[in-house]
């Protein structure tokens, strides 16, 4: 291994690439029309994601975050050697293939993943040129905050800054307000978690479907209006002739 190997950079690179793959897979799964293929793909995606988390945890076990270097694992009991990171990965992979990962292990993996997220967290950033929120990138959270703050600032004056921020917040609030027309309670149903996930994954695709439907309906109404106008005009012409 290279003397100048940077563990932190490498692991961040892996995480960044994985996030890209996750997002692409979400879109691809959402676009899949065949129900069986979609289901198979979703299951495969979940399986791969679990393995990726195990891999990251295994790599992180090999290195000391503080010193950015390989760390030797100390044996707590010389008679019973502690499980190495490598054997841990192999065991967990084998378990996952047999679909028998213990909940405890999953909880530990998730906890560690969350802890690492606090140290090197990424934020999804949608490109401004893309109105449909399809093209995006994961950027480090600090960079995301800088971009966000830069867009909101229009004056160096503190009072104006605050006013602009308030207006921005109000505008954002107004844009996401939905107004109830009646006093009726909404109808609700209970869905399983896997069903909920499928619905949630469908959101982007369904946004497109809804937009297309509205456009189609509007065009149909315009077409109907024009036809009605034409008929009315024909009637008027006939009357005039008489």
């Amino acid at each position, binding site marked *: 291994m290279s003397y100048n190997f940077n563990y932190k950079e490498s692991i961040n690179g892996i995480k960044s690439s994985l996030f890209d793959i*996750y*997002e692409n897979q*979400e879109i691809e799964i959402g676009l899949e029309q065949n*129900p069986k293929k*979609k*289901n198979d793909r979703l299951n495969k995606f979940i399986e791969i994601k679990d393995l990726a988390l195990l891999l990251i945890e295994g790599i992180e076990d090999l290195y000391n975050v503080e010193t950015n270097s390989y760390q030797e694992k100390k044996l707590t009991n010389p008679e019973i050697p502690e499980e190495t990171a490598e054997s841990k990965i192999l065991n967990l992979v084998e378990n996952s293939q047999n679909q028998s990962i213990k909940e405890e292990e999953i909880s530990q993996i998730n906890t560690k993943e969350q802890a690492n997220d606090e140290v090197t967290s990424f934020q*999804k950033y949608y490109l401004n040129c893309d109105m449909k929120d399809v093209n995006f990138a994961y950027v480090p959270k600090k960079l995301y905050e800088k971009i966000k703050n830069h867009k909101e600032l229009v004056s160096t004056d503190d009072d104006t800054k605050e006013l602009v921020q308030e207006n921005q917040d109000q505008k954002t*609030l107004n844009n*996401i*307000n*939905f*107004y*109830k*027309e*009646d*006093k*009726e*309670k*909404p*109808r*609700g*149903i*209970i*869905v*399983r*978690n896997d*069903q*909920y996930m*499928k*619905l*949630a*994954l*469908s*959101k*982007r695709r*369904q*946004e497109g*479907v*809804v937009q*297309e*439907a*509205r456009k*189609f*309906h509007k065009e*149909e109404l315009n077409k109907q209006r024009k036809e009605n106008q034409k008929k009315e005009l024909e009637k008027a012409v006939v009357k005039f002739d008489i």
Partner: protein
Amino acid sequence: MDSSEKIIIVDQDNNQQEVEVVTYLSSKDHKNQYLVYTKGENQPNGDVIIYISKMKVEDDKTTLEEISDDAEWKDVQKLLKEIANA
């Protein structure tokens, strides 16, 4: 996974409630669109309660109307099943 989209539902008494958008639905004849959302009421066994309301967009204002017609509600459930059971 995808980051959640939050919206505010304002009722006729001007009470505001923040909810999370799950997805959207469109009827087969393209005439009606529906909003599917949650209020964060997760059950201990992992099941989730979702709510469905009809959406109307007029002059940049989006309104929600509850589904009162049973036949319409059945159609909406079919639309949900197509996605949730895919």
